[in-house]
């Protein structure tokens, strides 16, 4: 076998639809690679042990903690951050609803909330408020008390279901 231990690893991945190649230090978190090397500072690094959810990203179609994944592990992955999801318009209705319902104050948790909420909404069901709370239970917000965020996800789920029927 040719591959052995390295302290820097070559990775080739897709970020927000663009191919990226880089050599990353083995201990570097995916979230720090995105923020410091690529300048994608939308998702935030906060608790850095998987508790707060501020670093939530979409990796290969699923919401993932950016601080519990090393950049070295992202070789071949398809990554979307809040910047990419904004540019494509994927979460436009969700973002508009966050503003309309005042579901953010400082905004620190919002990028992670959006990615986590979008994962639930993409399932295409009409989640109950309890299911919404459960799905977002890994994303901390210290401002809103969550009620407005749950309102947003509930209203967007209804709106999208209505649109799908129309």
């Amino acid at each position, binding site marked *: 076998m040719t591959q052995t231990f390295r302290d820097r690893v070559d990775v080739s991945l897709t970020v927000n639809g663009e191919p990226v190649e880089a050599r990353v230090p083995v201990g570097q978190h995916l979230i720090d690679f995105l923020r410091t090397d690529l300048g994608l500072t939308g998702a935030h690094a906060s608790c850095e042990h998987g508790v707060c959810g501020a670093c939530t990203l979409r990796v290969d179609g699923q919401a993932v903690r950016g601080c519990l994944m*090393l950049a*070295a592990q992202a070789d071949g992955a398809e990554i979307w951050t809040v910047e990419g999801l904004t540019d494509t318009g994927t979460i436009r209705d969700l973002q508009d609803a966050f503003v309309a319902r005042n579901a953010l104050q400082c905004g620190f948790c919002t990028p992670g909330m959006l990615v986590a909420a979008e994962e639930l909404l993409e399932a295409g069901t009409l989640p109950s408020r309890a299911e919404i709370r459960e799905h977002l239970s*890994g994303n901390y917000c210290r401002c809103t008390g969550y009620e407005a965020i749950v309102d947003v996800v509930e209203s967007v789920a209804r709106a999208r279901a209505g649109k799908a029927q129309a």
Partner: protein
Amino acid sequence: MKASAGGYARAVDVPHALELMAGSAGAGRYLAGGQSLVAALNMRLSEGDMLIDISRIADLSGIREDGDHLRIGALTRHADIGRDALIRTHAPLLSDAVRHIAHAAIRNRGTIGGALAHADPAAEFPACALALGATLHAQGGTGTRDIAAEEFFEDVFTTTLAEGEILTGLSVPKAEAGEVQVIEEVARRSGDYALTGLCLVRRAAGHRLSIFSAGPVPMLARGAMAALDAGDLDAAVEALRAEIDPPSDTQASGSYRRHLAGVLLRRAVKRIEGDRA
């Protein structure tokens, strides 16, 4: 904090992973879903590890039928176990357990093999493996071997896996007709580790009851199992409370955990009796 690691290598198959481990001078660590290991690296509980990324080894993932058992690959992720139809049909305890494990984003990455090998005393899957009477499959330099779940968990974060051995998967017996499996736990917030929890399985041969977050390892509560077989719930609760010695910590006192164990057993029995009706 930022993670500290000494090196990284991506294993292409199990022999390659074992070879990397053998060449790591004792510093090798298998990296699967990373939902506990990367957190530990971040908190500098472990430094200088030579990470052997096994997460790309395709044949360690997935669920298939194997006669009267289900064979579950070690790299099968929690979220996949939660939505798998074979698991739902033949080992519903595991489907039921998934909703208690951490949060959605963690379940998307964490693996069942990682959870078993990590052996957190408060984790759900080790207790499920015990209650189901699972067999764990391991591969090392000298070949493969099977380990009964009852022989696997040795101490806090410690299993009977030998140095360098990889957990490749587990086999769980398919539920027989009329078998009932439930998990009950109490946590302060959704996604937190359980203060205490238990898994109860009722088969024709008798009850199997495992309890977790009540000691250094998940354990079968054999006294309570015997009392349940005899149809005496009060005696089972008494036996369960007597056969555990739960620790006190910042989350809960030992005596509160002992109290919870009995409450959870009554809830679990109520649920399986409800299923019989």
